[in-house]
C-alpha cells in the first residue's frame, strides 16, 4: 500500500483504465449477468403493475419455489380469496406438456406463463382449461376474473 500520497487524488491514468477494462472483460467472461435478467425483471414489473392478488399453493402440496430449486410436479391447486385453480400435466407425444386446468368459474381468462411468454385460455362453462405443447420449465398462472372490478390473481411459480 502506498500511503505517502492521497491515492484518490491521483487521476486514473492509462494503466488504471487498462486494468479496469480488462477486469470488466474478465467478469463478462466469468460471471456475466444472465442473458434473461432484463426480460425477467421487465416481466416481473409488468405483472406488478397489474396489482394482482397472489394466490397460494394449497397446504400440504409441494412448495412452489424458484425454478432452480423446484422439482417436477404433476398436479397442484392454487387458492386465492375468490378463486381456486387446479392444474395437472400430462406428456405430449413430442415430450412437451399438456396442461389441464380447472378453475372456479366459466368464462375466465387465464394466462399460463412459460418463462416470459403468455399462453391465454378461457375456461368453459365447467371451468375447464387446456393448454397444449407447453415447454417444460417454470410456469405460473394469471387469472383475470370476468368482473373488471375484481383483482387479477397471480400464482407462484411452479416447475412442471
Amino acid at each position: 500500500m502506498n500511503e505517502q500520497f492521497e491515492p484518490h487524488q491521483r487521476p486514473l491514468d492509462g494503466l488504471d483504465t487498462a486494468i479496469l477494462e480488462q477486469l470488466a472483460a474478465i467478469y463478462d467472461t466469468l460471471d456475466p449477468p444472465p442473458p434473461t435478467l432484463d426480460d425477467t425483471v421487465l416481466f416481473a414489473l409488468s405483472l406488478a403493475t397489474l396489482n394482482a392478488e397472489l394466490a397460494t399453493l394449497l397446504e400440504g402440496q409441494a412448495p412452489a419455489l424458484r425454478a432452480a430449486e423446484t422439482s417436477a410436479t404433476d398436479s397442484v391447486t392454487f387458492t386465492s380469496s375468490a378463486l381456486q385453480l387446479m392444474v395437472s400435466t400430462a406428456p405430449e407425444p413430442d415430450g412437451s406438456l399438456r396442461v389441464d386446468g380447472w378453475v372456479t368459474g366459466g368464462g375466465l381468462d387465464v394466462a399460463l406463463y412459460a418463462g416470459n411468454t403468455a399462453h391465454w385460455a378461457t375456461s368453459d362453462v365447467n371451468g375447464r382449461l387446456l393448454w397444449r405443447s407447453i415447454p417444460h420449465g417454470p410456469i405460473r398462472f394469471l387469472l383475470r376474473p370476468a368482473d373488471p372490478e375484481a383483482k387479477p390473481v397471480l400464482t407462484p411459480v411452479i416447475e412442471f
Partner: protein
Amino acid sequence: MDGTGNHAGLETAMTGDTDLVDRAATLFEEFRGGRRELLEELVRLLNPTLWHLARSCRLERADAEDVVQTAWLRLVDRAETIRDPQTVLAWLGTTVRREAWRVARERGRTQPWENPEPGAADLGPGPMPGPVEALLRDEARRTLWAHFSRLTPRCQAILRVISRGGAPDYAALSAALGIPVGSIGPTRGRCLDTLRTYLTADPAWSTQ
C-alpha cells in the same frame, strides 16, 4: 465527502461515457412524469451494475437475480417517495445490498453481519460459475485475475463494480456497498495501486 464531484467527473472521463447516474436520473424522472415505457431502458441501463453489486455481496447467481428483481419491484412500488432522481441508482444499490443480507440470513449462512465495519466483511466475490482457468484463455487475463484474487474482498468488490461501463457515483457506491462515502475514493485508489504493484512486478502481465 471531499471532492465527490471531482470523482464523478473522473469516472466519466474514465469511461468516456455520459455519467450513469445522470442518465438514470433523467430516465427515472421522465418515467415518473408519465413516460412509463422508459422503465425498460432504465432496467437495461442499470442491470449490469446491479448484477455485479449483488454478486459482490456473495450471493449465488440465482439469488442475485432474485434480489435485482426485488429491487426493481420496490423501486416501482415506491417511486414517488424518492425525492431526488439523482439518487435512484443509490436507492437501488442500497436495496440490493439489504436484500442480499436478508437472503443470506435466510440461507442460514454463517456471516459476520454484526461486523462493526459494514462492507468490509460481507463483501466479496461470489462463487464463480465455472473453472476460471478454463474460462480465461488469455494469459494476461489469467495473470490479472490471479493478482486481483490476492486483494481484500472489499477491494475486489469495489473494483468489480467500478470496472463496469460507467461507474456509479461515489454516493451510489457508498450506499450500495455500505462503505462511507469518504472512504470510497481512497479505498479505490489503494486497491488499484496495490493491484498495479502486483502486476508491474509480474513479467507475465501486459496490458496488450
